[in-house]
């Protein structure tokens, strides 16, 4: 079991440029079913053995895809997401970085009226280890197991997944949800999915400064948590008013400080690691207590 993606997931790739082709190949090596690529004007051709289509609708008709991975450049990325939503896919993952926030506000409004789950943008994607990877993460750092994992970061996700895997703690599903201010699957929603997943026995929540998604996730777990959780917040030493790389990682006024997030988790009985290296130990303790 897992959430959002598994061995049966059939994925298309929107934007088969250099990055798209590279990662489509890595995903196939991992075992994901990559059933098509989309690029206007490419219909009827093949790229690296993957059949190409002019539109998402045509790709879905021909391949029965239920998921899409988007590599389209920022100026056209919102349009690509809207095209995927129009095709009523179950899961859309958008890797693209630098999408204007007003474009994402429009996407979020449309998304609210669909049953599609959107992960990203500006994210590494999602992986159910051993079954399916839709994203750009290095698959070898992940292993199947009982730990559900949600993170706003990219490489920090690999770092922590690697630490968990080395400690013998495999993962049910890892969701890299992205570092932008407006994203498709915010932390509280991702935590809810993992909390309701029977295969997930413990949840690791990796947050960053900025916004109040972690506080809401803590509030949700306090009220509805069925399993133990462990948290980490990146950016404890970041000064206010400075954007730490991610557009969403900024402390403005009293909003979004690491202290507020740490306090929220601790009040919900969720231990907060001081460093990524502490996470496996805390997870093991949590699993033993559960």
């Amino acid at each position, binding site marked *: 079991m897992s959430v959002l993606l598994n061995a049966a997931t059939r994925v298309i790739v929107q934007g088969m440029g250099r990055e798209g082709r590279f990662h489509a190949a890595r995903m196939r090596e991992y075992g994901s079913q990559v059933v098509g690529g989309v690029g206007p004007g490419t219909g009827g051709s093949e790229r690296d053995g993957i059949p190409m289509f002019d539109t998402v609708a045509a790709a879905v008709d021909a391949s029965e895809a239920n998921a899409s991975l988007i590599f389209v450049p920022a100026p056209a990325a919102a349009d690509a997401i809207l095209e995927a939503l129009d095709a009523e896919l179950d899961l859309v993952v958008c890797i693209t970085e630098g999408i204007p926030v007003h474009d994402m506000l429009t996407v979020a409004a449309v998304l609210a009226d669909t049953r599609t789950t959107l992960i990203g943008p500006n994210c590494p994607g999602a992986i159910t280890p051993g079954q399916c990877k839709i994203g750009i993460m290095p698959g070898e750092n992940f292993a199947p197991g009982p730990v559900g994992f949600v993170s706003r*970061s990219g490489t920090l996700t690999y770092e922590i997944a*690697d630490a968990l895997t080395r400690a013998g703690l495999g993962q049910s599903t890892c969701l890299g949800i992205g570092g932008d201010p407006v994203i498709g699957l915010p932390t509280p929603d991702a935590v809810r999915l993992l909390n309701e997943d029977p295969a997930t026995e413990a949840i690791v929540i990796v947050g960053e400064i900025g916004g109040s998604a972690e506080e809401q996730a803590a509030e949700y777990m306090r009220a509805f948590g069925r399993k133990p959780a462990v948290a980490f917040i990146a950016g404890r030493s970041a000064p206010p008013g400075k954007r730490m790389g991610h557009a969403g990682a900024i402390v403005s006024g009293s909003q979004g400080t690491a202290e507020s997030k740490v306090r929220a988790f601790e009040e919900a009985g969720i231990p907060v690691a001081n460093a990524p290296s502490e996470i496996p130990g805390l997870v093991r303790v949590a699993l033993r207590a559960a």
Partner: protein
Amino acid sequence: MKLHEYQAKLLLARAGIPIPEGRLALTPEDALAAARGIGAPVAVKAQVHVGGRGKAGGIKVARTPEEARDAARAILGLDIKGLRVEKVYVERASRVRSELYLGVTVDRDRRRPVVMLSTVGGMDIEQVAAERPQAIARGWPDPRLGLLPFEARRLCFEAGVPKEQVAGVAALAERLYGVFRSADATLLEINPLFVQEDASLVAGDAKLDVDDNALYRQKELAGWKEVSAEERLEEQARALGFSYVQLDGDVGIIGNGAGLVMGTLDAVRNAGGRAANFLDVGGGAKQAVVKAALEIVLSNPRVRSVLINIFGGITRGDEVARGIIDVIGEHPPHVPLVIRLSGTEAEAGRRVLEGAPLVSRETMDAAAAEAVRLAREAAEVLAP
């Protein structure tokens, strides 16, 4: 990217929102001429990208053109929170009966724009929000429809705007929302929005932040960009494709991925040190980018050691290693380098670095501890 008040007001005026007559002045003589043209009394206002300029002496009211000149002389060149005032805006003084707050920003949690209106104007809205949350009316328009007339009216009634002013304030709010959208703003505020003695409305101040991700399609606004002396390194880094923020410690940091770099900053703090900067080389950084990144970090005179933390995904360890070897070869660094390579091609990277004058550590925590120790050692050597 922040706009100056006079730039934001130009956008408001184009959208039909009333602003006081005003002119930009770069010298005291400019200010004198501006005040004569507009007619005293005027306000002389520093144009700098920080809040709280009034408290810092950056705004003065002048009753005569000569007073405006003297005010400009006092304000130009002033240092406000580390920024030098290069220009002032000379503006007709308003005849104020009352003040409102009107603003639009992005509500991340609701994933909607949020329009805020309060009859407590002229104050820091965060402070009002903390102390009297009920004094702020909020509305969340559908971005596909814009702020609808009924939503704007509802905001006015909920905020307690006197009923004879509702139509005017509501129409102004709709226009403001239009500017928010068309300028790709992440924040647009009129604070205070003056109700004048003749009941007319006029924007007392204006604050507009433009989404950096949208500058490619906001050509005019992108052309207004100003880079202050202290932002120059950050701007240079952006041009090279990475993200750099100057901090005030002495351990230089380079990493790949925003979250990992933030985590590295925290690891340095956990080890009892302070980071000199945030530097994310981004995904897939090549040799040349790593070289440029290391040069920028080393150009900061405060740096006493450098910590390089790379977890390879798209980024390859051997590419990073070659960038480092390049810099060391050209001009040997004056401070010790500590490196931690993991992930894709980390093994190959470590081979490239064999024999080079740097310290390698297996984990992020160990590398951070070593970098902090070396920085402290250097500081002790320098101390008398």
